[in-house]
């Protein structure tokens, strides 16, 4: 026997227009009347073609509030992504990560896109500084190693053999 689809599942699968209609019943525009769950339940068959219990309606409105907040956060993140995409120095992966950071911050606390974009740019710039620092460290290590090799060669009678030179080059490549 087919499992009957639960009313809250049917409610969650309504189209955007019906969802907006139901949302407005609980969250009316200024001056509008906020309906009780009981009143909405009584009118539900006319509005959407099926009925639902009060508990299903209550769960549905919790979900709908959360869905709207989630969608608003996603819209803010998309706005930040577009803002960052104007900067041609940023690669798409960095922009994606920044948009994800905006989304997470928006979900945890209402935020301001400009501030997030500025923060994301600072974070990306910070990462670039880290990369540059690591490159410099590496170059310094290579230079130190080359100095050591040179000194060793100077102190050794007959200089460095071909095998020793190959080993030195191999080590340098590994750095």
């Amino acid at each position, binding site marked *: 026997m087919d499992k009957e689809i639960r009313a809250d*599942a049917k409610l969650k699968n309504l189209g955007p227009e019906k969802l907006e209609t139901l949302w407005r019943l609980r969250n009316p525009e200024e001056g509008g009347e906020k309906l009780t769950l009981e009143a909405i339940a009584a009118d539900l068959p006319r509005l959407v073609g099926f009925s639902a219990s009060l508990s299903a309606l209550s769960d549905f409105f*919790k979900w709908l509030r959360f869905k709207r907040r989630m*969608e608003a956060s*996603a819209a803010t*993140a998309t706005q930040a992504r577009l803002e960052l995409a104007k900067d041609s120095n940023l690669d798409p992966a960095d922009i994606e990560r920044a948009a*994800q950071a905006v989304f997470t911050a928006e979900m*945890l606390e209402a935020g301001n896109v400009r501030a997030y974009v500025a923060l994301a740019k600072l974070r990306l710039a910070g990462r670039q500084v880290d990369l540059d620092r690591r490159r410099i460290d590496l170059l310094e290590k290579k230079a130190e190693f080359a100095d050591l090799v040179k000194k060793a060669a100077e102190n050794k009678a007959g200089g460095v053999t071909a095998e020793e030179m190959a080993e030195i080059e191999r080590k340098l490549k590994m750095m």
Partner: protein
Amino acid sequence: MGHQPQAPQFSDARVRKAVREVCALAAGYGKSEAVLLAGVNELLTGDPTLRAVALPQLRSGVEWNVGKNYLRRRKNEDTDAHEYLITTNGLAKEAIE
């Protein structure tokens, strides 16, 4: 002496479903553990600050969904934290419930 109102308790099955529901919304974005915790509590109680579902129960619900391939995990390189995304299997599971 006054007493704190008791937060409602939810079954593991209900928490697992709520985890999928949170991940199914804005599905392109990963949900950190903090987002999941606030989201699951908001979905179940209407109040994101209420801790009807605590972190251990949430983690167990997340792991169950990852184990069933309803969610996938990825690491955010910026925060070093894991984020969760719903899979096509997870979306299908949501659609039939």
